[in-house]
């Protein structure tokens, strides 16, 4: 990619203070506090209806802010129209104007500013070449594939030299193969331009692959903000652990407490030891263990050596070969969907079959306590 373009303006930081969005009685975004550093690739991640798109649209200026304040590059933008903000938005379906060819689509904002035809077409060509679409200048959007349309939409958004690019589910309209390719390209473009990207997605895989900073949202609130690795290895809440995937969640009641270690009584009468700063006896808590940090032992023997948290006896319900690892599903008393991801060689050293009685064991250090009251059922809240 390109020498076609001088380094753009550096990315502006975005600060949201107590920002809410209400539609009548419905609260879509609930007093969120968030700072996105300039030049970062930030993913707003969450299920549909979590408020991530409303948040993005408020930053863009396409949605009024019910209360709170949004500042971009230190300047409060609450009352500003979208075009007056140093942002550009790429819409979910790209919203390329169907009656204009690629060149005129990209040159649109310059035309609105009254820039002359030659000048705006030159600039538009420059941007089309940035996204490798210079050969398609005369095509109509309908004559392009999804990936090509996305590139043109990117060029159109970037033509205004924004300091922040806002992307609303940019990859959701593409097929899986193209999604991965465009993902790479978005990331490369962001690094090359050095501007702030805010990318809304419901795919944790996409967020992990792209983001410097992941903001996990649910029910209009921020559940966790952090680097992908932090979010994955230290999910802050039950919701994050469930949403991000790859975790097993176990709930229990504190039976004993001492030396910073609490002993939990599990739903099926199992005993687990968890590192616990200060949880009163009788309290109900939940913890997560990553599926890839668990080992399987064939004999259903209970180990309670110092380094171990405990053992979960169960029956193997599925064995899926995944190449680098083997995914084993367990049916254990009181725990739904318990998955173990064994590395290939570990599995074949001691293979198990569906129906085998096994014990899942993990080290104390891999226990991760979760905030949020554990309630039976699929949804944490």
């Amino acid at each position: 990619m390109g020498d076609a373009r001088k380094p753009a303006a550096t990315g502006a930081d975005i600060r949201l203070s107590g920002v809410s969005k209400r539609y009548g009685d419905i609260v879509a975004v609930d007093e969120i506090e968030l700072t996105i550093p300039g030049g970062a690739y930030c993913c707003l991640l969450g299920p549909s209806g979590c408020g991530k798109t409303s948040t993005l649209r408020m930053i863009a200026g396409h949605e009024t802010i019910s209360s709170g304040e949004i500042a971009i590059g230190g300047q409060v933008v609450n009352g500003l129209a979208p075009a007056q903000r140093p942002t550009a938005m790429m819409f979910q379906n790209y919203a390329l104007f169907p009656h204009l060819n690629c060149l005129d689509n990209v040159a649109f904002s310059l035309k609105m500013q009254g820039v002359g035809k030659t000048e705006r077409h030159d600039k538009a060509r420059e941007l089309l070449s940035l996204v490798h679409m210079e050969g398609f200048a005369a095509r109509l959007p309908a004559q392009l594939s999804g990936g090509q349309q996305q590139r043109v939409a990117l060029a159109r958004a970037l033509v205004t030299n924004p300091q922040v690019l806002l992307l609303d589910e940019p990859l959701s309209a593409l097929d899986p193969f193209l999604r991965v390719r465009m993902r790479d390209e978005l990331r490369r473009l962001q690094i090359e331009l050095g501007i702030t990207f805010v990318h809304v997605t419901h795919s944790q895989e996409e967020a992990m692959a792209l983001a410097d900073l992941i903001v996990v949202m649910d029910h209009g609130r921020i559940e966790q903000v952090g680097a992908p690795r932090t979010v994955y290895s230290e999910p802050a809440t039950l919701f994050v652990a469930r949403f991000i995937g790859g975790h097993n969640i176990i709930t229990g009641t504190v039976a004993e407490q001492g030396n910073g270690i609490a002993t939990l009584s599990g739903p099926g009468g199992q005993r687990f030891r968890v590192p616990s700063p200060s949880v009163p006896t009788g309290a109900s808590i939940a913890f997560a263990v990553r599926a890839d940090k668990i080992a399987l032992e064939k004999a259903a023997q209970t180990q309670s050596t110092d380094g171990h948290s405990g053992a979960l006896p169960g029956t193997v319900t599925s064995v899926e070969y995944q190449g680098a690892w083997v995914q084993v599903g367990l049916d254990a008393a009181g725990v739904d969907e318990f998955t173990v991801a064994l590395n290939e060689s570990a599995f074949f050293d001691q293979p198990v079959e569906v129906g085998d009685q096994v014990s899942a064991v993990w080290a104390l250090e891999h226990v991760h306590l979760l905030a949020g009251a554990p309630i039976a059922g699929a949804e944490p809240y």
Partner: protein
Amino acid sequence: MSFYLLAGVFALFVLFLYGPMGTIIVLSFQGSQGGLTFPMDGVSTFWFSKLMEGVGVVDIWAAFRRSIRLGLIVMLLTVVFSVAAGLAFRKRFLGAGTLFYVVVASLIVPSIVVSLGIGLEFRLIDDQVRAVGGSLGVTSIVEDYTTSMGLFTSALGAHLTWTLPFGLLIMFAVFNRFDKSYEEAARDLGASDWQSFRHVVLPIIAPSLIGVALFGFTLSYDELARSSQAAGDLNTLPLELQGLTTTVTTPEIYALGTVTTGVSFTVILLALGLVLWLRRRRERHGTDAGQGMV
């Protein structure tokens, strides 16, 4: 089995739809000695040439020109008002529902009643004008004023009561399918409300507007009931035609019918052609065929 049954029903439907028109067209080529009904007495264009010379005492070509001119004005106003109303109804406003029903109710009220009402209204206006003229002592009004009714006042209004609800309904369908993110994208790219309408909304809905225009013109061009009590001194073509059916007893009336139907079809074909041409032109600009490797 069911295929043949349904095909038969469909054939009957088509026959009912186009049979009458076909009969008129065929009979308009009646031989010069032929009558108003079958059998044909040879084939000729005799009645068309007779038509060219005029039909009896009425100037049919003047009526033709009047109807076309009125149709074009109705067409223009229908497009402008329908688009404006369609845009307005995209926003929620107080009384939107009531207003919609008031507009559409005009389609349900019998045409002849609408026409009578408009006629009466204009008579009231005339009375007022005369009264005011008389009390002010303006002799020109007292002596020369006849009526404010006319083709481009009362008849125009009568036609609009028919075409505007249709136009609005079409615009509803158009804007229902219209993706709002186009306008948001335009706004994001710095377009003002007017620029967004002019450069984005209007070009995208343009093909549908040709449809609205077509409706406006053809509904006006062949409107009879609503014109009947509201046309004023000069008649529209359908009114003249209705008069002629009772006085003319030759196939000339069929020739006239063929010509007017021809005008309607020409307008429709022109409009469709325009849509196709616009689409082709856009696509041709977009293709890179013949430009070699890119």
